[in-house]
């Protein structure tokens, strides 16, 4: 990701809103699409993006230029996604309802392939996962990140990341196998 100029960050640290708009324009696509991949819901992604940028504005003074700003922003966004998701029961309820509808349309691999939109497939894949697990899978599969990079972002050991992702994938495989083995409910 291309870095924003240091002067922009310094101006934001002094509370200059017009420079914060420059920073926002630079990173908005990244944050919004990360939020969207996580929630698969446009309004929720919008709310999360809003919260993330307000948090950035409030906490940017703590950025000491010891790491890339994009890494700092990545970490902040991931923490915010996990925490917001934990705080709001609304999201999970909404997802449950939506997944319930999808659940009825699954019967076989052909049904899955032909009957579901890409977004619905992803929702089905992510449904059994906790927020932290979703993040791990999204970073690995959607952003195709190396284990070391994920470990660096989430401040955990690369070995832990690898084993967690392996377990997550196995769990999803098991869930999908069960879903596809059942008779469709129509």
């Amino acid at each position: 990701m291309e870095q924003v100029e240091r002067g922009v960050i310094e101006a934001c640290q002094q509370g200059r809103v017009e420079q914060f708009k420059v920073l926002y324009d630079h990173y908005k696509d990244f944050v919004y699409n990360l939020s969207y991949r996580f929630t698969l819901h446009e309004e929720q992604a919008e709310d999360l993006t809003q919260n993330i940028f307000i948090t950035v504005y409030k906490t940017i003074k703590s950025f000491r230029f010891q790491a890339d700003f994009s890494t700092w922003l990545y970490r902040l966004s991931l923490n915010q996604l996990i925490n917001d998701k934990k705080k709001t029961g609304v999201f999970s309820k909404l997802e449950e309802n939506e997944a319930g509808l999808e659940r009825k349309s699954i019967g076989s691999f052909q049904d899955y392939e032909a009957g579901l939109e890409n977004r619905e497939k992803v929702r089905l894949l992510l449904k059994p996962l906790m927020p932290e697990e979703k993040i791990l899978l999204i970073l690995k599969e959607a952003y195709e990140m190396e284990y070391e990079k994920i470990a660096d972002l989430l401040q955990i050991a690369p070995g832990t990341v690898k084993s967690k992702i392996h377990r997550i994938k196995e769990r999803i495989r098991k869930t999908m196998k069960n879903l596809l083995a059942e008779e469709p409910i129509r």
Partner: protein
Amino acid sequence: MNEKFLSDETLFEPLKSISPLKVPAELWDKILSGIEKHPPLWHERLSLVPLRLVGVAGVVMIAISSIVFYWSKGERVDYNALNNFLYENIVEAEVEDQDPVLGEENYSDFLERDIF
């Protein structure tokens, strides 16, 4: 068929294929109102002040004040000189003007004698 479907490449392909969305134009206004709705708290405002500069200025001011105090109003009293002065002007004077009976009048003079 299921084996192929359950492979990493096929099963997680949808995650890679989510197309990026355009950020809604009104999002910035929401963020802006969110920022304005939550002005920095007093301790956050404090951190906006260059505290280090204020600290250095404070230390310099204290140093200057100490020096000024030392050399002017708070000039140290030379107790030896004061002692000598008192001895010469009071004790010795009393000895010189020794009067077997220090009368009321003389005593008043003694009290009002300008020694400083």
